[in-house]
């Protein structure tokens, strides 16, 4: 039975057509995966379904009722709920209060906390989630917050759950419980539209897959009838030879960075070495201390003890500024919050870390700035109409490239990547991998933090596994396996 049907939906923005005559059928009870590169039109399509965007043409048919456009309220009434990457939860309220936000159970004019907690507990039991309804949302990990968000949607009798890259912020273990949850929802008759860049989970979860590209639906097919290569080919419109481009052996014997007994910011007694030309992977669960370690090295947080030796000199960065002067760069985890300056243009973002260096008498040498920005735009193939384009108008992958360009301009010797490809489409991913290769091939060193198991194994020369702020294991290339890493990361 068709639950949701989009007929010939077209949405135009000034200068761009975001959706071109899109036709999509969603069958009741299925998990329907929606895949495509960033900018393919997936987000706009979702927004049409939630009433956030009014299409220029076409009809939306939900449970037999036809609409030319929806409002957010109408969409919710028709049983559509969306789980966004950014959660709509209130940190300072309890789990139960969040679930019943705006429709609290009351006794007269007083909120009945007990009844809400009881009802929330019932929903959790039904979904097999282990969360205390009285816990504050702020105290939950991202994974649990997401489960609360889903429970909230379910409690509102959502018929169609649209999930926008739900697994992106999750660790492997957390993602597993998300998958289990999806299976359970499906069994109880909820229809799920699942958007993801992770092909593995798409194949694992979905019944059907729809590929979007350039605002159009390219194909809808049964998951059983396709494979990864075919899917990737449809998404990018060209064939990708390999996800992890090969690199020349380039690990030298010279140690670039040596860390001895480093403690502070939640990590303890870290000892590690990175050689020139090496990619060192840092694996571990969320909260294992990987980002915290990066923050120590980059001078974001102070160390309590230990030594950091870079190129033979002991360094004590107390600010990122000082770490950068030592030759360290950090591509942070959260692109929008920590990486780019959205209101600034591409050029201004690229030159941000070297402005003082290219200034004389306090004045920026604009020709030099232009030249450097242009050089990196070309070499990284940043897709932007001009260097004066505001960064907020670029796609996620191109924003990430702008951040990388900023660091390449500062000519670092050690680059720390924290989740370098989170939320980035397949094509841009492989370009970033190539770039990483170029970095180490030119004798620089890379410290790569990643929650994507395949990525860590595909790109690293060596992997260190962290757990509870300590290094619990080191794996050489030939020892790499998902089991080995997960084993080290999750032992208690």
């Amino acid at each position, binding site marked *: 039975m068709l639950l949701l049907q989009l007929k010939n939906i077209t949405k135009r923005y000034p200068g761009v057509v975001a959706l071109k005559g899109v036709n999509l059928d969603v069958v009741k009870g299925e998990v329907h995966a929606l895949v495509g590169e960033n900018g393919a039109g997936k987000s706009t399509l979702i927004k049409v379904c939630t009433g956030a965007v009014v299409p220029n043409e076409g009809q939306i048919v939900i449970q037999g009722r036809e609409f030319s456009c929806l409002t957010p309220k109408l969409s919710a009434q028709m049983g559509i709920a969306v789980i966004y990457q950014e959660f709509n939860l209130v940190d300072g309220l309890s789990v139960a209060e969040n679930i019943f936000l705006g429709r609290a159970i009351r006794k007269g004019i007083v909120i009945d906390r007990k009844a809400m907690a009881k009802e929330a507990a019932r929903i959790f039991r039904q979904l097999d989630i282990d969360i205390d309804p009285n816990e504050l949302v702020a105290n939950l990990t991202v994974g649990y917050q997401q489960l609360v968000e889903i429970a909230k949607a379910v409690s509102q009798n959502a018929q169609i759950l649209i999930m926008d890259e739900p697994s992106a912020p999750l660790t492997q273990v957390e993602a597993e419980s998300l998958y289990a949850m999806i299976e359970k929802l499906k069994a109880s008759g909820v229809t799920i539209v699942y958007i993801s860049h992770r092909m593995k989970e798409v194949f694992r979860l979905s019944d059907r897959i729809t590929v979007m590209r350039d605002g159009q639906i390219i194909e809808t097919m049964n998951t059983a009838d396709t494979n990864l290569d075919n899917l990737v080919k449809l998404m990018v419109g060209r064939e990708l030879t390999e996800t992890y481009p090969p690199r020349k052996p380039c690990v030298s014997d010279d140690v670039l960075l040596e860390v001895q007994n480093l403690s502070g910011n939640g990590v303890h007694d870290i000892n590690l070495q990175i050689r020139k030309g090496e990619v060192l992977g840092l694996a571990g669960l969320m909260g294992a201390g990987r980002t915290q370690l990066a923050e120590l090295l980059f001078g974001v947080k102070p160390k309590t003890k230990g030594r950091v030796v870079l190129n033979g000199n002991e360094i004590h960065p107390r600010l*990122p500024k000082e770490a950068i002067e030592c030759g360290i760069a950090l591509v942070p985890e959260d692109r929008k*919050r920590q990486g780019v*300056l959205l209101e*600034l243009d591409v050029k201004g973002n690229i030159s*941000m870390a070297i*402005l*003082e260096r290219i200034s004389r008498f306090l004045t920026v040498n604009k020709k030099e700035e232009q030249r450097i920005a242009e050089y990196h735009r070309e070499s990284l193939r940043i897709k932007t109409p001009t260097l004066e384009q505001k960064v907020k108008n670029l796609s996620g992958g191109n924003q990430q490239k702008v951040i990388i360009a900023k660091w390449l301009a500062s000519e670092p010797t050690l680059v720390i990547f924290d989740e370098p490809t989170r939320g980035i489409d397949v094509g841009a991913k492989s370009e970033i991998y190539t770039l990483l290769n170029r970095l180490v091939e030119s004798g620089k060193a890379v410290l790569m933090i990643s929650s994507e198991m395949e990525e860590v194994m595909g790109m690293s020369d060596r992997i260190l596994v962290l757990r509870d702020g300590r290094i619990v294991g080191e794996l050489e290339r030939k020892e790499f396996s998902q089991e080995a890493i997960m084993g080290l990361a999750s032992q208690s």
Partner: protein
Amino acid sequence: MPRRAEGTRKETVKYSTLRNTLGSVAASIGKQYGIHIVLLTLVLFFSFASEDFFASSNLLNVARQVSMMGIAAVGFSFVLLLGGIDLSIGSLVSLVNIVTAWLMVNAGWSPVPAVILALVLSAAVGFSNGWIIANLQMPPIIVTLAMMIIIEGVAYLICRGLPIFGFPKSFSVIGQGYVGPVPIPVIIMAVIMGLGMFILKNTYFGRYFYAVGGNEEAAELSGIDVKRVKYLVYTLSGFFAGIAGIVILSRTNSGQVLSGKGLEFDVLTACVLGGVSVSGGVGKISNVLAGILVLGVLSNGLVLLDVSQFVQMVIKGAVLLAAVALDCLQHRKKT
């Protein structure tokens, strides 16, 4: 997709793309030059409504009236760009006023050292604001509010609430002199605004104001020493307010505790009218100048039309509200 439908669809697309493009061009002109259009409209309106308005003497008069505001607005814009606010500039103008007057009259200093000391003092007050905000992580509105009250108290303590007058003759040049037909305060304003534009456009630290105001965390992680930027910006705000204080003192020829009262809100209104975002990271000095002129033309024109002081207050308040509302609406559209 049926083939034959394609031709007509293409044409519809073309037509509506054209329409959308025109619409967005109009919108972006409105956004960029909105304040200039408002200014032009006001000037035209008052020119027709009052025959005295468009006289060159009156226009120069308007320019001189707004010059103190314009001088202080440069530092204030920097603070807004950073995502902060500086409520202490009004009191600071009063303090500089009183201190300079006291030094010249009661301590017998000559104008130059008195002015220098007063300017150093104003920069120091600004620096304290910045230091407290950056190191104690307090909200700027509270820090500068407290500073405003402290400074006003100090000014009262120095002069015991009485005006101080009787300055050397030479001192009046700053506020009352002319170069050709142009009043000196207007020239000072032009120089300082030019300096402000230069800082924002061409210096590296000017770029940092936008970066820190746009996203403090990302700025810090890009190697910007955010604390130092804050010290600098609040120090400049204090310093420029100090210059405004000197100009006002020279113009009125009498040190008064109330000389800067409420200036912070006039300047805030002008900056916001000029499109400086109260949430930081967005703004241009050239538009702030237009914002200041709008306020100046408005109050001058209303006086010429004999509108009462109180009605003027109502209008000014409404203008501020409308300007902020516009700013917020634009922000909401983005998300």
